[in-house]
Each structure stands twice: as C-alpha cells, then as structure tokens.
C-alpha cells in the first residue's frame, strides 16, 4: 500500500511539476511574478532527460548489480539517431542551401548521403533507430559479456572502453556524423520550429510523460517476479544459477531494456539542448550518471531521478553563481554523500522512515550489504 503511494507520488510530482511549469510559462505574462522563463523550461526538459539516463543506470546497477560506466553511450546513440532526423528536417535551409545533404557533408565534399543515413528523413524511422541502435549495441555487448561471465570491475572497465571507442569513432569526420562539431542548428521537429516556446514546453511535457512511463515500467518490472530474480542475481549470482535460473538471460534483458530507455532519453535531449556531439560519449559522462544514482540512492528508482535532477541543477546553478569554485562544491558533495549518506538520499531517508515505523520488506537497501571486494577471490578461469 505504502509502496503504491510511492509510485503515485513520484509520477504525480513529475507530471504535476511539469504541467505547472508549462502553465507558468505559457499562461502568465512575462512580467508576472509567477512567470517561468523559457530558458528554465528547456533546462527542466534537459534534467528530465538526464533523469531517464539515471533511471536506466539504476535499473542495471541498482537491481542487476551491473556497474555500467558506459551508459551515456546509449544515451548519445539515441541522441544521434534523433539528430540525424533533425538534420534532415533542415533541408535546404542550411548555409549551403543543399536540399539533400546536411551542411557538414557538403563541407567535407560528399556528393550523396551515405547508406546509413537512409530513411533518416522520416520521423518514424528515426524513432525506430532510437530504440534499435542502442538496443542492438547493448544486445551484442551484453550477449558476449554475460555469456562469458564477465563481471564486476572487468565489466565496468569494458563498458568504459566501449564508450571511449565510440567517442573516438564519432570524433572522426569521416564517420559521416559531423565529427567534433556534431549536429546542431536544428530548425524543425515534425514541422514545429524547435526553438519556439510552445515546442519547448511541449518537449518538456513529453519528456516528463515519458519519464513517468519509464519509471512505472521500471517499478513494475522490479516488483515483479522477474525483478526478484534480478535482485537475487545481484546479490548472489552463482547461487541463483545453482537454483536453475539463467542469470545471463536476466541480465541481458534488463541491460538491453535499460539501453533503450537511455536512448529514448538521449533522443528527447537533443532537440532540447540543440546540439549532439561526440563529447556526450566521454567516459566522464557515464561516471557522472552513476554518481547521480549513487547520490539519489542506488536501488531506489525515484532516488535515481532525484539524484540526476539535483546534481544537474547544482551544476547549472553553481557554474553561474561561483564559476571559479563550483568544482569544489560538486566534488565535496560527492565525497560527503559517500561518507555520510552511503545509501544515497532516498535510500537513507527510506531506511530512516522504516526504522521509525515498521521494517519494510522492500528490496531497496543496497548500501547495507557489503559487496565483495573485486579482487578477493575470482572464480577459476573457464
């Protein structure tokens, strides 16, 4: 009962907050005290997309025990798929007025679109790519890795290598994705001008709705029988295997699902920030996503969302408020949370609450269980 309230409250806050923002932006005069500037709307939209990434990371790390340090790669791939569509929407409005080719291709002297851009002018096709590309990459990577039982820190570093390799690849101009400059200067999405106020509000509302849907899906998943097996895999993979489950299948499924969720986040992110470039693949971005989750509370889905929003808000605010010192504040925050709130904000609060009322059966508390040191006793080589 109490946990249903949890979901309802999270979803209600996401949707209610977003609606409130929308009303305060569109429905009030610019001089009104209650007016929310457009700038804040797109900022909130951006946070919501990051929250999707955090949710995806929490699903695999918090519930399946896969510490991914490369999830931003899926986010960026989704973003690139959307970026391709947005580039094609520019049409002949680019600086060279070429009706078929994006500016950066005209510029590197290409005469026709490469094959992998085929169909990117259709929105529905781009949406398929948004789901398919991250999903496929996650499937191939996960299939190989989980089948050969690459676990723990080995897996983490490999995900890092994956996103690093992708970053280097997308930096190359010859890849046909715009190199370091990436894709930018978008005009329309589905015929609506991207920088129009109403489009920005619409995208923000859409992000909120999709985030809420993703949250509900994840919540349903982890509370289902599937989710319980997942937690069992997280806590004792071998024991689960001996009981007759196939941990690799469970992990693969959740890994692919989470990659798709991150990809959708990326796709919504791009029209709202107006640029996608290879630095989205930077290994640091993936590590940061993990940190959002840790800060909010690993294994608590709402904590992941809270962590993403809080950290990014802190970043937005402090880079303007004290531009020379904000790294101290952010670094200090991470250290302080680790030392004093080992279960993250939501995890600690939940633990505090349940201590006050009655012990909860929720499979939330991750930080409580000491994890085995990665070096301690590896399994024999196959």
């Amino acid at each position, binding site marked *: 009962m109490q946990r249903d309230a949890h979901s309802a409250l999270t979803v209600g806050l996401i949707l209610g907050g977003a609606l409130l923002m929308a009303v305060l932006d569109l429905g009030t005069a610019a001089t009104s005290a209650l007016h929310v500037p457009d700038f804040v709307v797109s900022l909130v939209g951006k946070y919501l997309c990051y929250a999707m990434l955090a949710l995806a990371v929490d699903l695999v790390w918090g519930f399946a025990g896969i*510490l991914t340090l490369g999830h931003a790669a899926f986010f960026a791939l989704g973003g690139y798929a959307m970026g391709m569509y947005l580039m094609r929407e520019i049409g002949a409005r680019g600086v060279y007025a070429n009706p078929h080719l994006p500016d950066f291709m005209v510029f590197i002297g290409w005469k026709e679109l490469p094959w992998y851009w085929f169909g990117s002018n259709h929105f529905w096709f781009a949406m398929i790519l948004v789901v398919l590309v991250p999903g496929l990459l996650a499937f191939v*990577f996960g299939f*190989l*890795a989980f*089948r*050969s*039982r*690459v*676990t*723990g*820190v*080995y897996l983490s*570093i*490999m995900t*890092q*290598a*994956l996103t*690093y*390799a992708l970053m*280097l*690849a997308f*930096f*190359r101009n010859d890849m046909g994705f715009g190199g370091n400059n990436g894709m930018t200067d978008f005009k329309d999405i589905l015929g609506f001008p991207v920088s129009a106020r109403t489009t920005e509000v619409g995208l923000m509302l859409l992000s909120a709705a999709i985030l809420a849907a993703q949250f509900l899906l994840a919540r349903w998943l982890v509370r289902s029988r599937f989710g319980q097996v997942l937690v069992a895999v997280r806590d*004792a993979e*071998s024991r689960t295997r001996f009981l007759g489950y196939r941990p690799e299948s469970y992990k693969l499924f959740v890994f692919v699902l989470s990659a798709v969720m991150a990809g959708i986040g990326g796709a919504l992110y791009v029209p709202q920030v107006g640029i996608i470039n290879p630095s989205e693949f930077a*290994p*640091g971005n993936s*590590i940061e996503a*993990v*940190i959002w989750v*840790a*800060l909010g509370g690993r294994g608590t889905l709402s904590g992941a969302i809270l962590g993403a929003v809080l950290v990014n808000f802190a970043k937005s605010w402090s880079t303007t408020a004290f531009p*020379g*010192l904000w*790294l*101290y504040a*952010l*670094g*200090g*925050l*991470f*250290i302080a*949370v*680790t*030392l004093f709130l*080992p279960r993250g904000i939501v995890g600690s609060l939940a633990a505090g609450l349940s201590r006050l009322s009655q012990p909860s059966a929720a499979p939330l508390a991750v*930080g409580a269980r*000491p*994890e*085995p*040191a*990665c*070096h*301690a*006793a*590896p*399994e*024999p*080589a*196959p």
Partner: protein
Amino acid sequence: MTEGNRGKGRRLGRLLLLCLGFALFRPAPAAAADPFAGLASPDFSRIEQAVEALAASGNPRAAALIDALAANRLYTWRWPRPDNGLFIKEPDGGFVAARTGEKIATPPFPVIRPVIVNDMVRSAIEAARGMLDLLSPALAVRGKAAEALFEAADPASLKLIDVALARERNPGVRRLLLEAQAAARLNSAATSIAERIAAVKVVAGRGDLPARALLASLGSAPSPVARAAAAAVHQIDRTLALWNVLETVYYGISLGSVLLLAAAGLAITFGVMGVINMAHGEIVMVGAYTTLVVQQVVAATFPAFSNESLILSIPAAFLVAGLLGIVIEQTLIRFLYGRPLETLLATWGLSLVLIQTVRSIFGPTNQDVSSPAWMSGAVHLGGLTLTLNRLWIIAFTIATLALLMAVLSHTRLGLSMRAVTQNRRMAAAMGIRTPLVDALTFGLGCGIAGIAGVALSQIDNVSPNLGQSYIIDSFLVVVFGGVGNLWGAVVAALILGIVNMVLEPIAGAVLGKIAVLVLLILFIQRRPRGLFPVRGRAVEA
C-alpha cells in the same frame, strides 16, 4: 637532404673556399666598401648576403659580429640612418660599437632595435661558423663539419674536401669526408659518369635517410647515374623497412612503458587493494607539479644543479604523492572498505577537488618543466633513432617496477601487504596492524603514481588536465593484465603499446586506438579475468 640544406651547403662550400683562400694565399684585404652594411638592412636576404660576405671578408670583428647576431645581441638604428650603425650588447648590458669594438658611453637604447634573424639567416650563420670547423683540432667538430658537407653535396666544396682529406688522419672522419666527396661529385657536372656511379655506391653504403634523400634527388641526372641511384634508393628503402619494424617495436615498448608507469600505482591501489581510485590520474598530476616546484626551487637556490633537479624530483614526488595518499586513505578510503564501488564516487569527487586546487594554485595554463640536457636529443643505433627521453623513461620504468616487486616480495611491509589483502582477518589475527598496512599500501601506490608524474612531465603537458588523459588507459592496463597481478600489468602494457604502434601507421592514430579498444573488449570476452587471473577457490569474485 633538402634543397634548403643544399643551399646551405653551397654557401658553406663557397665560404670554405674563400676561407681557405685566406689561409693559403693571404690576398689583400677585401676591397668592398663596407662589409657590415647589409646587416642593418630590414631585408632578410640582404642580411644573409651580408653574413656570407662578412665571414669571407677575414675581418677580425667578423666572429664577434656573427656570434652577436646569432644570439640576438646585434642592434641597429630603429629608423635607418646613412651610417648603418651597428652595436653589440655585451652580457653586462653595456653596448660596444660593432665595427670597432669600442665601448659606447651612453647606450643609444631607445632608438635602436635588435637585428632580427630568420631561418635563412640562421642557416647562413651556421654555415659561416661551420667553415672554421673543418680545420678544428677537435675530432667531433671536424666530424660534424664533414657530415654537414655531405648533406650539402655541393660540387664547389670538392677542392676543399681534397685539402681536408690530405690532412685528415682519423679514419672515421676520413670516411665521412669520402662520403661528402662522393655526394659532391654526384652533383658535379664535371665528374665523369663512371665516377658518379661509383659515388652512388659510396653514398648508398650509408644506407640512411640523408643518403636516400640525396639519391632520390638525382632523377634528372644522366640516365645511367639516375638508374644506379634509383636502384640504390630501392635497396635503402628495403633496409629501412627492416629497421622500421624494429623502430615500431621500440616505439611500442616506449609507449608501453609510459602506460605501465602510469598504471603501476593503480595496480597497487586498485589491483591489490581493490580501491577504484578515480583520483589516480590526479595523483600523477601532483607528481608532475612536484617536479615543477622542485625545478623552480633548485633554479632559485642552486642554479648550478638545475640539470640534476629531476633526480631530486623523484624522491620528492614519491614523498608528496605518498603522503597525500596516506592522508586520503585516513580521511576517506578507510571508511569505505568493503564498499569498493563507493570509493569510485568519493575518489571521483576527490579528483574534481584536486584538479581545481591545482588550477587555483598554479593557474589553468601549461607549466614549463624543462628537460635536463642529458635527457634531450637522440642516439643513433644503426637505422634507429632512439630519443633519449624515451630511453630514460623505459629504464626508469624498469627500475621502478623492479623496486616495487622487491618491496612486495622481499620486505616485511610487502609481506604484510600481501597478507592483509589476501585475508584481512587472518592477517589481523596473526598480529598484523591492518589499518597501518592499509594506509602504507595506499601511500605506496600513490607514491608510485607520483613518480610516474615525474616521468610524464618530460613528455606531456604539465597542466591540471594531465591526469585525465591517463586514467582510462591505466584502468585498461590493470584490467587487461588481470586485477591484482603486477606481472599481468607489465605484459598488458607492453602488448597494448606495441599493438597500438603497429596499427597506427596502417590505420591512422584514431582508428588504431579504436581497434585496440575493440580488440580489448573482445579479448575480455574470451578471458573474463584478464591475461593472468589470480586463481582461487571461491566461485564468485
């Protein structure tokens, strides 16, 4: 051999002849109006001619003037005046009149400007100085001059070479002179075809890049010579291709040693202790900045030992980084044992703080850590060019690793470290003070990272971002080798280095690196515990 070099050489030949002329025949002093006039010109080609003329003039002030010009100590009027005034700034700050060497009482400072030299003038200066070198009593100087004559390959120098050959007794320099002679003959229209073909053989005998360049430039020579030269070029290319393989291996080893050095500290803190230390790169950076500080302190207090400050930096960086490591362990890491993934979060935060601290203290820009003389330059080994700084780093890496292994396997501290990491409770039961050992182990790992910073300061930027560029590679090395295995890290770093350098010329630097990463990912699928897994009986890691 480039045309520029040849131009330089032609000039050198001309000068040498003139000089020899003076030495042998003592003609009347040059009658030219003012051999110095052109030096005051704003036009580089006039300055260049003036330097040549000056060197040939036999004027007793020539050497002083040319030296002053080379050192940017030659001044002229800021606005041209008919007397073409030239002044030399003495090291004490005073001025002398360039033509006479007399001291000037009131320095004409505000109305004069230094005479600027560019590459062309600098070549002329080099040639003018080199002219005297062929007759120098010092063997090395003569050898260098002969080598310059070879690169010049100027027919005008043939007579001079004959004179020098007649005097030269040292076989090494003689050989160089003979090669120079052959090179000059190749470009001389007066030499017979047969002699020139013989010269091709002599030049080809060197088998190096300058010889190849010279032979490759003979395309327009009479066809038998050109054919012989083309065949020789082909031959040299084949030899060079062989050397190239060796060179690639050397580059690979050198890259591998840099990777290994950067990863060695992590192999302790992460590999042995299991702390996912994201601030590792920043500890390396602290080591590099320690090098900077030591260098500045030494330069300020004992300038005579500036060349040796790097040696002093090694223990200094070890101590600074090691102490920093112990402080980090005591204030942060020790609360997180048993929660390795959370060390990731805390040390990531720590890395942000360290970067910003260094940026606040030293500023965001690159710092100049100069290389000592004994680390600059290169040695030539057959067809290989081995740069000294890389050689030293390879040696340094080997020494560091040897020392580290000795500490781990032959000291009481090493024994305790291994005991604690293998079975903490048992070790504690045996009376080992595990908290102390933890702190010392982390300090040791950080200290090693610090001395890696000393080495990296010699080949990379010393900036707050230094650490960030090595952190991923360091983790890859440790994981590829097998966490907890120092030898694994050694082999992994070497393999990564060599594979990278082999792929680079084939695929380009970017694709090569991508290929290495993909190969690594695939390899880990085959061996999920790295190259050398630590074996144990437990099922789960």
